[in-house]
C-alpha cells in the first residue's frame, strides 16, 4: 500500500535551536498514526511543517505521491490536510458555527454574502451528531475549554479532509468527551482518512492507535505497530532509559490540620456546600468531570473569587481572604490550570517569575530590589527542581511545558507555601517530567506541606492522592481513601448517571 503522506529527511532549525533532525515517517490512509515523545521532542514542529505553518529547513513532504511545500495553512487546507493545533484555536468573539466554518464559509449572493442559516444548521447537525450539548449560535467565549475543544473537533469533521492531524486534543477533555472524540476518529478511519495523533496519554494510544512513531530530541527513534509493543518499551524508547513505576506511590502520614472548608457556596452556584479538610503531610486529590466546579472552589479558597456563604479555616483559625495577597500571606499557593494565561509571565525571565510573590518580603531598604538574593534563590531552585534550562536569565516562553511547571512550583515553594493547590498540574506534560514533578510533590508533603491536587486525569489522582474527593455539579459527591478507590467507583461518583443510586 502506498503511503498517503510521507515526510522525508525533515530537519528544522529555529534561531539557535534544532527542533528536528532528519525525520522520515510514512502515514497511511485509514490508519491512526501516533506521535510520542517528551516535551520539546519536536512533535508539534513536525505537524506544523506538514500543514504549512513552518517551512522545513531541509527535507520534503510528499502528499498523494507528489512533493508539496505549503506556504501557508490555506494551501494545506485546500489540499485536504486539516489540523487541530495544540493551543486552543478558537476565535472567542465568533459564534460556534462561525468558528466551525471559519475560512470555509458558506456563501450566497454572488459568493460575497454569508449564508448564516445554512452554516448554523449544518454546524448544529454535526454537533448533535457528536452528541455534545452546544448550540451553534452560542458565542465561543461562553464555552468551557472542553466545549471549545469539541468545537475544534467539529470543525475538522466538516472539512472532508484526507489527512486529519490532532495535537493533544484530549488534554482539556474528560472521559465523556474523549469517548465522543474516539467515535469521530472511528468514523474518519472508516472514511479512509489518515490520522496523525499526538498525546502524552499512553492509554489512548493503546485504545485507538494503529502505529506509533517515537521522537526523541528532534530525531526519530523508531516506528512500532501498537499491537506489538508494551507501554514500558514505549516509555523506554521515548526517554532513552527504563523508567520504573512513575507514580512511585509513597506513604504519607497526615499530621495537624492545615485547611478546613465548611459549607462553601459560590455566588453564581458554581459550587454548593463544599466541605473538606486537608492536613500537613497529605495529598488530597480532587476528581470530577470537567465543569464540576473544582477550579472555582480553589479560586474561592485562594481569595480570587467571591463566595456567598461558608467558612474557611487555616490552621484552625477562621480566615476571610478578600484577595490573593491575604491567602499568600497565610502561606497558600495556587498553581492555576492555564499555565500560559494565568501562570506565567511568558516574556519574562525564569528568575523574575520565581521571585514574583516573594519580592516585597525580601527587598532591601526603601523597597530596593535585592538582586543578589534573586539570583541565589533562583539558581538554588532551578538546581533543586532540576529545571532544564541554560540559566535563570532564560525567557520562560522558551522552556518546555514540564520545565515551566517546575518554575511555577519553585515560585510557590520560595513564597513559603504550606498549602499548595495544584489545578491540573501535569496537563500537556510528558511522562518523564510528570514523574519528576510527582517526586517534588512527595518531597513537599514529606516536609510538612499539604497539597490539594485537582486533576481530570484519573490515573494521576489515583496514583498520588491519599484521599480522593469527588465533585459533581458543584457539590462533593463523596470521598474515598486511596486504598478503596478505583477508576470505576470514582467515575461512578463523578458522573450524572449514578446520581440516583
Amino acid at each position, binding site marked *: 500500500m502506498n503511503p498517503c503522506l510521507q515526510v522525508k529527511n525533515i530537519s528544522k532549525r529555529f534561531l539557535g535551536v534544532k527542533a528536528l533532525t532528519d525525520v522520515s515517517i510514512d502515514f497511511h490512509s485509514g490508519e491512526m498514526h501516533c506521535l510520542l515523545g517528551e516535551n520539546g521532542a519536536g512533535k508539534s514542529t513536525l505537524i506544523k511543517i506538514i500543514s504549512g*505553518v513552518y517551512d522545513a529547513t531541509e527535507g520534503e513532504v510528499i502528499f498523494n505521491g507528489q512533493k508539496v511545500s505549503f506556504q*501557508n*495553512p*490555506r494551501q494545506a*487546507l*485546500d489540499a485536504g490536510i486539516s*489540523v487541530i*493545533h495544540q*493551543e486552543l*484555536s*478558537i*476565535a*472567542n*468573539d*465568533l459564534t460556534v458555527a*462561525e468558528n466551525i466554518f*471559519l*475560512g*470555509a*464559509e458558506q*456563501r450566497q449572493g454572488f459568493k*460575497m*454574502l*454569508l449564508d448564516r442559516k445554512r452554516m448554523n444548521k449544518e454546524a448544529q447537525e454535526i454537533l448533535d451528531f457528536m452528541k455534545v450539548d452546544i448550540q451553534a449560535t452560542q458565542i465561543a467565549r461562553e464555552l468551557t475549554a472542553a466545549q471549545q475543544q469539541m468545537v475544534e473537533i467539529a470543525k475538522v469533521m466538516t472539512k472532508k479532509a484526507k489527512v486529519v492531524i490532532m495535537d493533544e486534543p484530549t488534554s482539556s477533555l474528560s472521559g465523556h468527551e474523549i469517548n465522543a472524540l474516539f467515535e469521530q476518529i472511528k468514523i474518519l478511519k472508516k472514511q479512509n482518512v489518515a490520522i496523525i495523533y499526538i498525546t502524552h496519554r499512553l492509554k489512548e494510544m493503546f485504545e485507538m492507535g494503529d502505529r506509533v512513531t517515537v521522537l526523541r530530541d528532534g530525531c526519530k527513534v523508531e516506528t512500532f505497530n501498537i499491537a506489538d509493543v508494551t507501554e514500558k518499551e514505549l516509555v523506554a524508547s521515548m526517554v532513552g532509559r527504563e523508567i520504573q513505576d512513575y507514580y512511585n506511590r509513597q506513604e504519607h502520614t497526615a499530621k495537624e490540620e492545615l485547611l478546613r472548608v465548611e459549607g462553601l457556596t459560590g455566588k453564581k452556584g458554581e459550587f454548593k456546600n463544599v466541605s473538606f479538610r486537608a492536613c500537613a503531610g497529605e495529598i488530597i486529590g480532587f476528581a470530577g468531570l470537567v465543569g464540576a466546579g473544582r477550579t472555582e472552589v480553589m479560586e474561592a479558597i485562594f481569595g480570587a473569587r467571591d463566595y456567598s456563604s461558608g467558612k474557611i479555616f487555616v490552621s484552625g483559625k477562621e480566615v476571610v481572604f478578600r484577595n490573593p495577597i491575604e491567602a499568600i500571606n497565610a502561606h497558600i499557593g495556587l498553581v492555576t490550570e492555564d499555565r500560559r494565561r494565568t501562570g506565567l509571565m511568558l516574556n519574562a525571565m525564569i528568575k523574575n517569575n520565581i521571585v514574583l510573590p516573594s519580592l516585597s518580603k525580601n527587598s532591601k531598604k526603601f523597597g530596593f530590589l535585592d538582586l543578589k538574593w534573586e539570583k541565589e534563590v533562583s539558581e538554588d531552585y532551578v538546581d533543586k527542581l532540576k529545571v532544564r534550562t541554560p540559566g535563570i536569565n532564560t525567557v520562560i516562553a522558551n522552556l518546555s511545558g514540564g520545565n515551566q511547571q517546575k518554575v511555577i512550583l519553585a515560585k510557590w515553594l520560595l513564597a513559603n507555601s504550606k498549602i499548595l493547590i495544584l489545578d491540573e498540574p501535569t496537563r500537556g506534560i510528558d511522562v518523564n517530567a510528570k514523574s519528576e514533578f510527582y517526586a517534588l510533590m512527595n518531597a513537599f508533603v514529606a516536609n510538612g506541606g499539604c497539597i490539594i491536587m485537582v486533576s481530570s486525569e484519573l490515573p494521576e489522582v489515583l496514583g498520588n492522592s491519599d484521599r480522593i474527593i469527588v465533585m459533581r455539579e458543584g457539590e462533593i459527591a463523596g470521598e474515598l481513601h486511596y486504598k478503596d478507590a478505583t477508576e470505576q467507583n470514582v467515575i461512578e461518583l463523578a458522573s450524572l448517571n449514578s446520581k440516583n443510586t
Partner: protein
Amino acid sequence: MEKLKAWLKKNMVIVFLIGLCIGFGVTTDTFFTTKNVMNLTSQMAINALLATGLTYVIILGGIDISVGSVAALAGVFSAMVGLMFPNMSVFLSIIILIVSSLIIGGICGFFNGIMITKFKVVPMITTLATMTIARGVTYIVTGGTAVFGLPTQFSWLGAGRLLVTDSHPNGIIPIITLFTIIVVALMHILLSKTVFGRHVYATGSNLQVAHLSGINTNRVILKSHILCSIMAALGGVLVASKLQNGQPGACEGYEMYAIASTVLGGTSLSGGSGSVGRAMFGVAIIAVINNGMNLLSISSYWQKVVIGSIILLAVIFDMSQKKKA
C-alpha cells in the same frame, strides 16, 4: 417587559442618545425644528465616515490616528483637481470628489497596511507617522494657502440640499446626509453580512487562529486599512466640497472624536467586536451634544469639559449595564 429590559440594557447608548435629544428639545426651542435636525444630520456626516472606517481597524485590534490628516490631504487634492475643471458639471464634481478620495485614501491606507503587515510596525506608530507625513505633504502641495476659486457645482455634494419649498428656498434634505447614509450602510453590510467582514472579526478576535484557519490575515488587515483611509478621505473631500475650498489645516484632531464615537458605539479597543451601525449612535451622541451646546450658546471652553465628561459617563453607563445583563 423582560425583553424590553434586556434590550435596554444592551442598548444603553440609544437610551442615552434619546435622553440627550429630549433634554435639548426641552431647553431650546430650535432643537427639534426641521432645519436644525437637518443641520445636525449633515454635521454628523464627516465624523460618521471617519468612525465607519475606524470601526474596521479597531475591530482588528488596531487604531488609526491618521484619519484627520488623510482627510485634509484628500480635501486639498480634490480641490486642486477641481480647479482644473472650472466648468465642471455637478456630475463631474462628484466623480472628482470620489476618485480623489479613492486615490488618496488608497495610497495612505496601502501605506499604513504595508507598514503594519510587512514591516510589523504597530498601528499606533505607523499611523502617527502617516498623520505627520500626510499633513506635511498637504502643506507642501498647497504652500499653506487654502485652495480656492472652485465653482459652485463643486459644493453640490457637500453643501447642496434637496426638496426646495417656499419656506426652504435652499432645500431641506442635505445631500451629504443621503450620501453618507448610503456609504455607511454599504460599509455596515460589508462588515456584518459578508465573508470578508467575518474575516475582519476573526482576525481581530485571534490573529493566530484566523491564520491557521486559512485566512490571509495580512490581506484582511491591508484591505481594512485601505477602507479606513478611503472613508477618511471621503470625509475630507466632503469637507472641501462643503467649504467649496481646500483647507490644508482641515480636520485636525478629528481622529479623537472619531475614536471616541466608535468606542461609544460599543466597539472594543481590544478588537474582535463592534459594529458600524452602532458606531453611528456614538457619532450621533457627539453631534447632538455639540449642536445642543451651540444652540444653548455654551462657551467653547465649557463644551470641552462637558463633552469629555459625557464620553466618560456614556462609556461607564453602558458598561455597567452590560455587566449586569
